[in-house]
């Protein structure tokens, strides 16, 4: 057992990180000074396991045995409760300068464990320019025991000033047999379900796990894949759009409300409320509540958009399969289960039309990310997929 067990299909990356952990040990032991890189940038497509890799790396740095996976340090780091790991997980659209200044201040503290203080910034692509400026000096000349781990989808997503100061590690999309094997070993998922989930998620581990373990996620996906054969009229487009957006909202809402409740309670207890007494009061508390609620509203929107994005990716996988069939490839389809519908659509339409559909889906994803009202973006998409207003 080790902290690296959860990293799927990233052999090269593991070699690099293991030797970095060795170097860190040498630096701590005072054997050598220059063996530890203190600013890292992990990049990889969503779901490739960037944040898991960052957490495992942190655990290995703080563990006496380079990441045994069993000791107190390993367990608390992986559970997110170790005092020497600061994990910035932004569910907002951007990370502002205030957050970053606060982080830079905290980065100067000495680690309690006398090993390292590891700061993981999960969405470094969401740093505002000002926030990036605030970070620059700290990653250029980090405090002796501080290790920065920034994560982003691609190197290009991070400002050049930042990335030039980091050691860049690229995670690849894990192959689907590696994901399936992981689901069987880790979650005890039956082989056939694991194979389906790994294939359908196209290498996105979190998504694969959701599909393997959650009936509702599978149902939602099936419904999305049914759309291409249902868009036969304007009315069907409008209804389908409403259904897709409602499903995304339904998936995201329980998660939002749970997070909200937790944070609201934390804030109240930080201000001395909770327990049996009356709640906290005062202007500072009121201001903090207002700020928190503003952030929570933003996150609620973001979670709906993320969920919607997954549906759009599922939909795109259908048309990519159609295109595969149209190009005459004997390749396995992402959606083998829907092969007959896919072949029917492939016969009815041309490859040019299919490519246009895939393009329309990616344009809709971009629109949703750019804050176009989700329902409107999806309505326009359904209309294009139905053959467009020009039919």
């Amino acid at each position, binding site marked *: 057992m080790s902290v690296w067990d959860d990293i799927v299909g990233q052999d090269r990356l593991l070699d690099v990180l293991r030797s970095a952990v060795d170097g860190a040990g040498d630096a701590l032991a005072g054997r050598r000074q220059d063996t530890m890189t203190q600013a890292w940038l992990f990049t990889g497509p969503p779901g490739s396991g960037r944040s898991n890799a960052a957490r495992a790396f942190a655990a290995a740095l703080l563990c006496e045995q380079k990441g045994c996976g069993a000791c107190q340090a390993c367990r608390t780091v992986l559970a997110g409760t170790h005092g020497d790991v600061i994990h910035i997980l932004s569910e907002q659209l951007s990370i502002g300068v205030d957050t970053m200044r606060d982080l830079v201040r905290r980065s100067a503290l000495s680690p309690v464990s006398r090993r390292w203080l590891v700061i993981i910034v999960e969405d470094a692509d969401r740093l505002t320019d000002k926030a990036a400026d605030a970070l620059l000096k700290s990653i250029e000349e980090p405090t002796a025991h501080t290790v920065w781990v920034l994560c982003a989808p691609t190197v290009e997503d991070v400002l050049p000033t930042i990335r030039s100061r980091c050691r860049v590690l690229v995670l690849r999309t894990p192959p689907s047999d590696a994901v399936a094997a992981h689901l069987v070993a880790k979650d005890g998922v039956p082989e056939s379900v694991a194979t389906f989930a790994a294939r359908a998620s196209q290498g996105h581990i979190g998504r694969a796990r959701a599909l393997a373990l959650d009936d509702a996620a599978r149902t939602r996906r099936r419904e999305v894949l049914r759309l291409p054969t249902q868009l036969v009229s304007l*009315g069907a487009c409008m209804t389908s759009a409403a259904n897709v957006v409602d499903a995304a909202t339904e998936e995201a809402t329980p998660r939002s409300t*749970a997070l909200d409740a937790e944070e609201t309670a934390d804030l109240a207890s930080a201000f001395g409320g*909770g327990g049996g007494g009356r709640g906290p009061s005062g202007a500072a508390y009121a201001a903090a509540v207002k700020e928190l609620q503003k952030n929570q509203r933003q996150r609620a929107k973001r979670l709906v958009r993320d969920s919607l994005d997954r549906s759009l990716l599922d939909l795109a996988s259908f048309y990519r399969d159609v295109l595969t069939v149209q190009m005459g490839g004997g390749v396995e389809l992402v959606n083998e289960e829907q092969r007959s519908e896919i072949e029917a659509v492939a016969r009815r339409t041309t490859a040019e039309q299919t490519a246009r559909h895939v393009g329309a889906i990616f344009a809709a994803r971009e629109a949703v990310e750019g804050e176009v009202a989700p329902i*409107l973006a999806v*309505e326009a998409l359904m209309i294009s997929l139905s053959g467009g207003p020009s039919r």
Partner: protein
Amino acid sequence: MARSTAGNTPGDRAALGSTTLVSGSNEFVAERTIASAVRAVRAVDADADFVELAAPELGAAALVEITSPSLFATARCVVVRSLEGLPAEAVEPLVSYVESPAPDVALVLHHTGGLKGKSALDKLRKAGAVEVKAQELKSWEVAGWVADEARRQGSRIDRAAAEALAEAVGIDMRALAGAVDQLVADSAGASITAELVRRYFGGRAEVKGFSVADAAIEGKTSLAIEQLRWALSNRVDPVLITSAVAGGLRALARYVSAPRGLREADLAREVDVPTWKLKRLAAQSRGWSQRGLATAIVAAAKADADVKGAAGDRQWACERLVISVLRARALS
């Protein structure tokens, strides 16, 4: 869902000795229900205890502790949040408590929705918990809810006024309750009229967006352009224009696609608009083909992206949308 329960709290009815079950994620209704229980308990006993905890902390022992009589306080209000996280072993003790509640305890349970904890929810309902559904309003429910809200605040609002308010303010319950509150205060005991609503809310940016949308959809070219310029020169955010136009087109597209022969109330539900909008939609629909509507909706999505930063000039994006809608109307 019965409208009478959508967001109407049990008011100041004796909450002691009863269990209120709030289900749904609408924070406004949930908070209001909790506040009203607290108020009711404090009205009986100003020194009453107020205990708040999350369901995952609710073991059987904790339940006994918070619901059994205490030495000093006579009354107690207990709020349990995140009921969906109730530990399995706590379900039965909680259900049997609800069946025979302590006379000096008001218990409020909040289940924020989703499938988790659904069976516990059903058992609690059967055990006699009074359910308050904390859900967002549907568009056809708004006018009725506003009337109930005015009554709650000791006033009255006539049908036309409630409709005008719904159109101006939208479906957010907190905003609606705030608006009713303001109108009640300013109507000084008289009933609230449409005229008063228009005086207070008619100048709102949203309303200006709607008049642009209606004029464009109805093919009134010069009126649409005039309304648009007027709105933009009054600093109405272009986002409100594109969303009003998109909303108008959406309602129309759903209207023309609805099955024939529905009763008025069912049709309103199908189209997702208040009933009084149907007549206007009927008139608007005569000028449009499905193809035209599809074209206009795609243009609205593009304009929405443009005003949110994809293109340079936001005002021009609005103008181009209005022109696209007017031209799409001519398509057959």
